[in-house]
């Protein structure tokens, strides 16, 4: 996942060496790899991710050469981490995101994966996911991914309602999804589907249709996100011009509550604000690593990385990215080294989103004091809090940022 606007940070050194704090305690943290594939068949109107249509790019950034460029960053990452004093760690998760990873041939994806596994090795039972567009997979390609080491696929379904898909500029036909899900199961892959709610023009009934349709495929995992209108997207411009109605937080709340009820009824439980899994083992471990503050290296233009309280992000444009790696330089555009207070802020912000919750005993006195107020406001589960863990209620999940702010005061 690489959002469009990069943060402002400190300059990143060309040799990619990390500050001393990155290595501290690394043996106790999981290590994951994110691989960004910056290609899409078409650009969706709501998307601000760093992605390009196939014909936009040339050279080392072209679709054909991209696999080789990504492998060069894998090599670079291995060298930089070793030189920064980080211990050898096997990969516990790998996640291919985009863009549309499946626009690259399955062989290209497995080649990049193979290079990473060759360099670091995989833990037993490691999770290897790729995002996929239902339109860009076949029975054969999914089988090839499974054979090449992938264990999980996440389909960008978004909606089952044609007029909603049209506003989102999604090209796939809704009927494609059950077919793709069936092929993925056949290949032995764990299956997740992504949904988006709150698209302008989507009624509550439309959303219920999408949720029920997604559930009818019996996925192992569902992510459901409210539509976020990002500045600079086509959708933002259409809303500004009054061509489509603006999004409405109250509508989002209604749809979130509806989805949560239907998911639960179907046997899926929430484990993060926007994610539900059939069993705890079906939760996406790669994403959990983000929220738990583990380490990951992000490969690809605009990709973000985090190692021991050091966050950095690569240059956005695929050509600039490829050129950096060709010269043997770090593709990082900037980075930030978090101080203990900032790391604590992130820990509270991220772990409070999880059903496994935040240990109240780890909080400072004023945050602990705030918990009572959050219980009174029905944002935090009182029983779990009594047992020492802060876990959000349904109302609390919808007001999660307010909970974080209360804990930061």
């Amino acid at each position: 996942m690489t959002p469009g606007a990069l943060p402002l940070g400190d300059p990143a050194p060309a040799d990619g060496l990390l500050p001393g704090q990155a290595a501290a305690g690394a043996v106790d943290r999981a290590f994951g790899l994110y691989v960004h594939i910056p290609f899409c068949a078409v650009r969706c109107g709501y998307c601000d991710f760093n992605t390009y249509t196939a014909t936009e790019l040339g050279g080392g950034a072209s679709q054909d050469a991209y696999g080789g460029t990504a492998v060069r960053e894998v090599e670079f990452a291995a060298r930089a981490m070793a030189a920064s004093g980080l211990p050898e760690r096997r990969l516990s998760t790998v996640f291919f995101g985009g863009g549309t990873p499946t626009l690259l041939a399955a062989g290209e994806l497995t080649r990049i994966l193979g290079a990473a596994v060759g360099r670091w090795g995989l833990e037993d039972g490691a999770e290897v996911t790729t995002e996929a567009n239902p339109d860009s997979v076949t029975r054969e390609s999914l089988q090839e991914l499974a054979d090449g080491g992938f264990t999980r696929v996440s389909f960008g379904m978004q909606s089952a309602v044609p007029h909603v898909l049209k506003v989102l500029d999604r090209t796939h036909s809704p009927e494609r999804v059950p077919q793709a899900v069936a092929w993925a199961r056949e290949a032995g892959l764990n299956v997740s589907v992504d949904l988006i709610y709150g698209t302008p023009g989507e009624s509550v009934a439309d959303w219920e249709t999408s949720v029920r349709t997604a559930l009818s495929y019996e996925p192992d995992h569902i992510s459901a996100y409210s539509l976020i209108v990002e500045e600079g997207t086509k959708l933002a411009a259409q809303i500004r011009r009054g061509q489509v109605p603006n999004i409405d937080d109250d509508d989002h709340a209604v749809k979130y509550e509806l989805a949560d009820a239907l998911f639960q009824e179907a046997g899926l439980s929430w484990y993060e604000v926007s994610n539900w899994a059939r069993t705890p083992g079906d939760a996406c471990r790669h994403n959990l690593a983000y929220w738990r503050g583990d380490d990951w290296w992000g490969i690809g233009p605009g990709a973000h990385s985090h190692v021991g309280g050091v966050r950095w992000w690569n240059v956005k444009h695929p050509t600039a990215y490829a050129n950096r790696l060709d010269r043997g330089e770090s593709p990082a555009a900037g980075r930030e080294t978090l101080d203990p207070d900032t790391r604590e802020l992130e820990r509270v912000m991220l772990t409070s989103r999880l059903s496994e919750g935040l240990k109240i005993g780890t909080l400072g006195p004023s945050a602990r004091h705030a918990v009572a107020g959050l219980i009174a406001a029905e944002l935090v589960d009182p029983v779990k809090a009594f047992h020492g863990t802060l876990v959000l209620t349904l109302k609390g999940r919808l007001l999660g940022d307010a909970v974080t702010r209360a804990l930061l005061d």
Partner: protein
Amino acid sequence: MSPMARTAPVPAATDPAIIRNFCIIAHIDHGKSTLADRMLQLTGVVQQRDMKAQYLDRMDIERERGITIKSQAVRIPWEVDGTSYCLNMIDTPGHVDFTYEVSRSLAACEGAILLVDAAQGIEAQTLANLYLAMENNLTIIPVLNKIDLPAAQPEKYAAELANLIGGRPEDVLQVSGKTGMGVEALLDQIVRELPAPVGDANAPARAMIFDSVYDTYRGVVTYVRVIDGSLSPREKIQMMSTRATHELLEIGVSSPEPHPSKGLGVGEVGYLITGVKDVRQSKVGDTVTTFLKPATQALAGYHDAKPMVFSGLYPMDGADYPVLRDALEKLMLNDAALVYEPETSAALGFGFRVGFLGLLHLEITRERLEREHNLDLISTAPNVEYEVTLEDKKVMRVTNPSEYPSGKIAEVREPMVAATILAPTEFVGAIMELCQSRRGILGGMDYLSEDRVEIRYRLPLAEIVFDFFDILKSKTRGYGSLDWKADGEQVSDLVKVDILLQGEQVDAFSAITHRDKAYAYGVMMTGKLRELIPRQQFEVPIQAAIGARIIARESIRAIRKDVLAKCYGGDISRKRKLLEKQKEGKKRMKMVGRVEVPQEAFIAALTTGESPKDKSKK
């Protein structure tokens, strides 16, 4: 043409017969300061190379806004027919709020130049000051300025001026302060037409204070015009209003830099320095006499400056309260009209209730506090002073709506003003409609010329202190001008409207209004607040009430969603920064009960929307 005077008359030894004391009555932008600069240059008192544009306007704000707040006097020599004369030019403040100061400046003169922009004609305040000058029996020299402008209409406006002062259009002088054209002729005219001052040189000294300015290095500098007798250095002087005595440390004339002299005689204009540190000890309008040979009768016309408009001033950051207190103390040294007392608002914290002469005075003061002391201030909606008589006959004076008594009220009196509006005739309908809607009573109407009219209304001051002038300007496409002066009080059917957030009264939003306008105020303010206050985790009712009776209500629905749906690897930094920003923002929140109200909401709800700068260009 007269040459520059070869020998300037010496202060303290100048025959009153060769003295001419005059001021310039003009509207802002009509070029008074430019003309004054040109006179300083032509008479040689300021060398070309020292010339700053608008030499007499000292303060930055004055120079930036092109207005004169404090007046000063300059002694200039000028020769006519071989005789050297001494001209004292007394600069008058050009704004409606400073009518009293203007009246004292006029009382120091025998004549006035009525200066009018040849492209714009006379404006309401100029007209008001002209009437004031005529009441003081001043000789008026009508002058059209900026005749070099392509848009100048000298014939039209000469006729207008002649009509006003009862002269002939061809006697109206035409000058250009910018090019200097006609300025020498004007200086000659001053010498020839204005009467020389008359006074008794042997009588006990009487000098009128027409201005008093605080200087960091010298203390208070007092500007006087000697009527009778004389003042000399090292003499003990006495203020007749308080009988306070001061040692005279220095006496002199401005030309325009200060020049100490051997004293000041009958008809002369100059400055005194006594070492006092507060302009309140040297009040405009007061009479200065000597301690050893005091006069028995003070000069007429003195009164204390009376604040008309009140506003609460609060530091945006509560920690700045001591800075604001010190800043007000300092400002008071130089502004005898400023009054203030500490005040506490549940919503805004610690601040001051400050009394001003008028809206411009308020805005200038606020701007000076912010600029010179690096403060961020919130000012509450301006109020007037009400006299409330309770049923038990107790009388209260209320300058802050939150002090309005809740008990049984027998009668409320509010201050009234006599307003004069000048505008092209085509806007008469719109102006009358506006004044009528502000509870105005038409006093009369006169044509200044074929297409310009003077309209007089009696209005409650409260109705003109907020947005009246802005609306007048927009209804007259910028051509309307306004002047007002206090005109007693009247009994009115007034009520206090309170605003309640979740049942808690927010003192900063209370207002005293006419009963007929209470509902409109309630609807306006509750609606405004509904837009300005962010949604909370619970529903927040907003009500407007008169006593216990609710007259308007709105409600802010509870927020239901406040969470970022997507929070993955690349979102984390962005999200964290947003939270840090929100945390900062929370520091600027004021709690009203359980409701978090952003500082910005207070400011937006208490202001009309346009910048104070636009309002002051009257």
